[in-house]
């Protein structure tokens, strides 16, 4: 059980990283884009706008509490996919 949890934790850290809200926001923005294009609106502007909002929000959260940002890792222990 410990290994399964560790395995899941690794992939969560690797893909989602420090701020899950970014991943959720991107999923929502892509779903909205798909919905709009399916209804005939070429919503090319939606994703760049979402990126702008999400980037400002995630940096603000990181600045408010820098400890939530992955710090310098122990050698070989880094898992998050953020090139830390």
């Amino acid at each position, binding site marked *: 059980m410990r290994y399964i949890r560790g395995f899941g934790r690794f992939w969560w850290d690797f893909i989602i990283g420090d701020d899950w809200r970014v991943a959720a926001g991107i999923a929502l923005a*892509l779903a909205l884009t798909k919905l709009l294009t399916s209804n005939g609106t070429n919503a090319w502007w939606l994703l760049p706008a979402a*990126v702008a909002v999400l980037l400002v929000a*995630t940096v*603000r959260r990181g600045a408010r509490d820098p400890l939530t940002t992955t710090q310098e890792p122990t*050698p*070989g222990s880094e898992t998050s996919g953020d090139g830390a």
Partner: protein
Amino acid sequence: MTSTVILFLAVFAASAVEAVEALTIVLAVGVTRAWRSTLWGVAAATLVLAAVVAALGPALKTIPIDTLRLVVGALLLVFGMQWLRKAILRASGYVGLHDEEAAFERSRAQASAAGEERRAGMDWYSFTVAFKGVLLEGLEVAFIVVTFGATEGHLGVAIVAAAAAAALVVVVGVAVRGPLARVPENTLKYAVGVLLTSFGTFWGAEGAGVEWPGADAAILGVVGLVALLSLTVTWLFRRRRAHALRPSAGAA
């Protein structure tokens, strides 16, 4: 042609950054403990990474292009924004800059303090740390190689870019016999974050059915937009931090 060049640059820069960090770990363990076991660890991790690329690269080609672009775009966006977030927080002073010299010394201290575990002529601490370091740093590169390569149909270009960057870092590392502390890592990470986020936006939107104004040339506009946005956010947060650190700001 333009997107192939950007693809090469993105993979090269990402691979260079990760290779610098992996080199620091490998050098620290190799110098402190046992080179033979460390290099076996590096070889084993490289083999695993090659197998990941060899297995996933062709497998992704079987997925319909729109679905592939949607999924890859979403993943690249999540990855890219993580890179950007941290690069911006570092550039604006909220998080400390990555210091290869300090990382090297930490690794050396840990390698020295670790107990001896020698079986079958191998120092398993050296093997494990080198294997884990190279695998974890390389996994991101493998992911970027596979997704960029499969989506653009240039897996070969992506592999060459990653291998060239890793080879360059190793050659320079051997030449200077130490961690590459002078590589402008945060600048490279910033650039990689901008490129991953841009490609993620471009492909994700295309996968969702969008037709970009200007077709493929729109990628240049997206890169410019994301770069401008990131620089503006960095500037704003640097000012905010400078203001917060002013003595009068605390007293107010």
